[in-house]
């Protein structure tokens, strides 16, 4: 949830044009603390990451041995590693499934909230809020408990419903069902955010517009795509881009589920893979190269979003 960037506040007021001719030092003084923090805490690490990615950098270097230049060797290692491509495929497939599910469910929930009367809407809001507010680690713990091999309620219910014995079925040991559980956690927490934001956007559509379309006999589906969608398109795009970014970056939930009982090699996503190469493998050069590839992938994905935001700032 850390990287949401929608323009807050009402209609943007143009920043005061420099009405005095000479440059003012004041805005720079205001920016100084930020600049120091960003240069030290973002600039320096990024530069050091780039340098490391071109070096042979292992455990010895951590303890002070000089690192030697490696050229593009680390990038070659990453790009020729079959497990990298498997991981990339896995991350993208999971991301696509999770984003589609989150957006679909979130949109349906927002539309449902539009239709409900006050009391039931409050009920739904409270329920979604509970899911949304749960810290990632706590929600993994709860879902891990629901899907527990021996005492989990899911296995109990499946046994009751299907008649066959599910007791002892391990959901996390199989990569496919591991990602199913992971997806449930992600969608359970992600859909409420989409629903709330979209609902807030939908309520700003003038009532007359919706009523008029209803009078004209437009079907609900047409009403959604032709009347509502144009109003909330910018929110919708931003929500999709944010979901893509969050779901491809999913880290804490994967690590937590793996500690309950997943097989790390077959369930690692992008961030986890980078992390494993570095800490577990002790190969920081390769890890840095993979990390930079990840940065580039993220920048490509968010390019449209950044451009859109900048355009809005100019208007």
């Amino acid at each position: 949830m850390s990287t949401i960037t929608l323009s807050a506040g009402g209609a943007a007021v143009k920043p005061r044009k420099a009405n005095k001719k000479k440059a003012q030092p004041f805005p720079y003084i205001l920016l100084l603390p930020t600049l120091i923090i960003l240069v030290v805490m973002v600039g320096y690490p990024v530069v050091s990451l780039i340098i490391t990615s071109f070096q042979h950098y292992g455990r010895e270097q951590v303890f002070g041995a000089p690192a030697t230049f490696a050229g593009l060797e680390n990038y070659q290692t990453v790009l020729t590693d079959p497990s990298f491509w498997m991981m990339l495929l896995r991350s993208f497939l999971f991301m696509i499934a999770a984003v589609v599910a989150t957006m679909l469910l979130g949109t349906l929930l927002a539309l449902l909230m539009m239709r409900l009367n006050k009391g039931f809407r409050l009920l739904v809001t409270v329920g979604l809020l509970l899911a949304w507010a749960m810290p990632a680690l706590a929600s993994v713990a709860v879902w891990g408990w629901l899907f527990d091999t021996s005492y989990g309620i899911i296995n109990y219910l499946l046994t009751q419903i299907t008649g066959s014995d599910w007791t002892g079925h391990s959901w996390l040991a199989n990569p496919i069902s591991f990602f199913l559980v992971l997806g449930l956690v992600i969608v359970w927490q992600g859909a409420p955010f989409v629903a709330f934001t979209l609902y807030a956007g939908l309520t700003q559509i003038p009532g007359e517009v919706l009523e008029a379309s209803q009078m004209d006999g437009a079907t609900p589906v047409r009403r959604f795509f032709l009347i509502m969608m144009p109003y909330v398109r910018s929110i919708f795009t931003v929500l999709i881009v944010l979901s893509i970014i969050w779901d491809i970056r999913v880290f804490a939930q994967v690590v937590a589920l793996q500690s309950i009982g997943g097989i790390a090699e077959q369930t690692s996503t992008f961030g986890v893979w980078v992390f494993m190469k570095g800490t577990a493998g002790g190969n920081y050069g390769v890890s840095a190269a993979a990390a930079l590839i990840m940065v580039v992938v993220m920048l490509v994905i968010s390019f449209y979003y950044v451009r859109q935001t900048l355009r809005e700032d100019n208007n």
Partner: protein
Amino acid sequence: MSTTAVAPVKKNSVSGRKRTSNILYSIVGVIVFFFSAFPVYWMISSSFMSNNKIRAATPTWFPGPGDFTLENYRTAIFDDHRAQFLPALWNSIQVTFLTLIICLVVAFLASVAVGRYFFKGRKAFIVAILIIQMIPGEAMMITYFRMMDGVHLTENVVGLMLIYLASVLPFTIWTLRGFVTSVPAELEESAMVDGCSRGKAFWKVTFPLLAPGLVSTGVFAFIQAWNEFNMALIMMTLPQNMTLPVWLRTYLLAEHGITDWGGLMAGSTLVAIPVVIFFMIVQGRMTGGLTAGAVKG
């Protein structure tokens, strides 16, 4: 029949259909509530049951007074063969509030610069702020660790806080900037015409109008720092230095293949309560702030 129906009948059938669909929507609403809230209910109810009860062949859907025990909470808080809860709570509080306060002060200054002044490099700064947000923190973990290790700030609240600061600052500046530009500069100018100094005009007129913005952006910094797990996991490894999410993970790691679900659920409840309460209080404000101005009528 319906093709020849006269107006009043038609009206009736329409409102009748509307009532049925309203009931249907309400039922769907209840189902949604059930599915979204059930895991939370299950977490809390399991946290108050003994591990024997939890592991019974048939689950206890509604624990009665006889099933109630505080044993799990006693274990989670006072058990001393694991990382301790209270130090973890204290670490989390420290790192969260340090991040929150410093972030808000620094971001506030920067957002005034970007939102109120037009200066050389403003555009470049905005682009940098946006792009920095796209750099995944997971990619930087190892670099951060080595950097902090170099200045002896691993296992240190300040070191962790600096990393959180870097991750929440760009977002906070961006959001606050929106709030700053939404307060018309004319308000300030008219106060200056009335004899206020510029600083005083800003303080007395503009700043109070920015308070809601500070609250809603502060929420994100709070939640980010309180819930963050990745960096804390590698930065705070000693039991006495763990933050709450890292402490909670020690429960996820099964001992001899047996997970202490009761203790884990009690711990999860303890970690979740402050955030859930916080969310409940500020929810309207947050989504409101997010979408204001994003809809163009």
